[in-house]
């Protein structure tokens, strides 16, 4: 690895110190009683349009995304750009469904998707399935954020053996854990503002400066091998790469706001209108993500993999090293410090929100439902704070002792699992026609089939579905949520017929879903 880059390191540490202070100071921002779960875990539902924009943007577009999407472009080419249609089609979904969920959660005091499902369908086992899915899908996601930090710390030239090698990561995480514990969602909300300004600065500087250095876009794209430049045209009897591309985009979009951390971000908004306005404003992040994806091609055109100073980095981090290497190659040290801080802090924001969201789920839908049924408000908030710590320590241990590849594969499975909550949560916002036990069976079969299919294709995202001599490669999550839906549709009338009088009441009213 290259020598320690002192200027970059100094700026990195300085910015980190600043957001640490900010994270603790956030406890006093829009002051509320942090001994109440909705104050600690949802920031009191008081964030307006601008703060929500930063919070949800910093939450959904994670640091790992900013490393991994360009890395995919660098390694695999055009397919990486599926992130763009993905982040286009999520916004109609956000606009149509999530204001309804916001209103009902606000009116009924729901904090998690599990709370909503519990109230809507009156089935605590279905709520438990939603909660466990959320927690399990979130854990590897937090671990991946740590990978983002690891890569930039490595790229700063800090290396060591044994505990010393992991020390910077452990410090970053201890800081994260401490301010999340004390300030709750207010901490990542305030830090997100700083982080996103840094990220936008980095993205626009990179998209302007580096192409100039490399002699323009035409030269960059002419350096990209033809088979990486576009999607391969499908052969006969298959939808080929086109089908994969479209289903990856659509399936990922359907799954995104089902994740506990994104839902937490949305529920912390101050009104349903704020959510709707953000559906028009958040594409700003999609645009930036598209620009950042192009950095993978810049790295390819700059021939970074052949440069001796980056050989060790690529060896250690693989293609994930492409963006840090490009920044080191194209910018003076002081700016590298800013850019790396943006990525590092960019990992802390979603990691904090994810741990809060997982803690909310455990507290509300597991602990309160099955263990201590009548906690005081104070006990409930305290439980969530402790769980947020446990979740983070778990993620840290995971990333220190388990190969990174394993976290990536688990995160892939997490996407398949979380989408199985779509019928209950997303469609549940519109109708309670479904029988809750039918939803539970659909969830179980979808999760099982998705896992089996993913294992069969060696934990890659797409599965080649064969049907009447045709092959339809597509996103496993997308296929299995259709299976889930069909099962729920078929079983609902059947289950209703068997136990017509035992259907639990819906505690929500139609009026709860509107302003």
């Amino acid at each position: 690895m290259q020598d320690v880059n002192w200027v970059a390191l100094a700026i990195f540490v300085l910015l980190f110190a600043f957001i640490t202070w900010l994270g603790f100071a956030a406890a006093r921002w829009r002051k509320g009683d942090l001994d109440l779960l909705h104050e600690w875990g949802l920031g009191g539902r008081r964030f307006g349009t601008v703060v929500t924009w930063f919070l949800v943007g910093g939450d959904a577009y994670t640091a790992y995304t900013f490393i991994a999407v360009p890395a995919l472009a660098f390694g695999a080419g055009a397919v990486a750009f599926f992130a763009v249609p993905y982040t286009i089609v999520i916004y109609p979904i956000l606009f149509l469904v999530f204001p309804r969920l916001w209103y009902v959660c606000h009116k009924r005091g729901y904090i998690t998707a599990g709370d909503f499902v519990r109230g809507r369908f009156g089935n605590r086992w279905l709520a438990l399935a939603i909660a466990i899915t959320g927690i399990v899908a979130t854990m590897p996601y937090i671990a991946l954020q740590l990978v983002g930090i690891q890569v930039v710390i490595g790229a700063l030239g800090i290396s060591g053996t044994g505990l010393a090698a992991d020390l910077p990561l452990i410090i970053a995480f201890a800081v994260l854990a401490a301010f999340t514990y004390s300030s709750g969602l207010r901490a990542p909300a305030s830090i997100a503002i700083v982080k996103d300004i840094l990220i936008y600065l980095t993205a626009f500087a990179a998209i302007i400066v580096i192409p100039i250095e490399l002699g323009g876009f035409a030269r960059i794209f002419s350096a990209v091998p033809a088979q990486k430049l576009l999607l391969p045209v499908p052969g006969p009897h298959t939808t080929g790469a086109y089908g994969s591309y479209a289903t990856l985009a659509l399936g990922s979009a359907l799954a995104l706001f089902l994740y506990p951390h994104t839902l937490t971000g949305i529920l912390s908004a101050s009104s349903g209108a704020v959510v709707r306005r953000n559906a028009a404003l958040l594409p700003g992040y999609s645009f930036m993500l598209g620009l950042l994806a192009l950095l993978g091609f810049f790295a390819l055109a700059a021939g970074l993999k052949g440069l001796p100073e980056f050989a060790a980095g690529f060896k250690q981090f693989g293609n994930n090293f492409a963006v840090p290497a490009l920044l080191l190659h194209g910018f003076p040290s002081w700016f590298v410090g800013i850019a790396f801080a943006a990525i590092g802090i960019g990992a802390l924001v979603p990691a904090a929100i994810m741990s809060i969201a997982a803690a909310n789920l455990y507290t509300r839908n597991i602990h309160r439902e099955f263990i201590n049924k009548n906690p005081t408000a104070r006990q409930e908030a305290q439980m969530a704070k402790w769980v947020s710590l446990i979740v983070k320590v778990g993620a840290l241990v995971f990333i220190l002792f388990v190969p990174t590849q394993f976290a990536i594969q688990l995160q892939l499975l997490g996407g398949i699992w979380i989408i199985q909550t779509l019928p209950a949560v997303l469609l549940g916002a519109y109708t309670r026609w479904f029988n809750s036990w039918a939803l539970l069976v659909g969830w179980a079969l979808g999760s099982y089939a998705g896992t089996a299919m993913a294992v069969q294709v060696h934990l890659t995202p797409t599965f080649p579905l064969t049907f009447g001599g045709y092959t339809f490669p597509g996103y496993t999550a997308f296929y299995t949520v259709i299976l889930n839906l069909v099962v729920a549709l078929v079983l609902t009338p059947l289950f209703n017929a068997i136990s017509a009088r035992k259907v639990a009441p819906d505690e929500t009213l139609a009026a709860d879903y509107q302003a």
Partner: protein
Amino acid sequence: MDDTQRQRSEWSWWYLLFLVQFIAVLWPPFYNTAEPYWIGIPFFYWYQLLWVLIGAVLTAVIYLATEK
């Protein structure tokens, strides 16, 4: 009965505009070509980036049209 009426009044024809962006970006044959280039960027890339902006504008139009 009141409920069903209120539910129905929530629907707006403006929402159909959302379909446009789904079709435009989820059908790769529309845009999986390098030509025409724009400032050296292949069509595949600038087309999809352009749709981010169009999608945002469409969403804003729908927001303004349906806001009570």
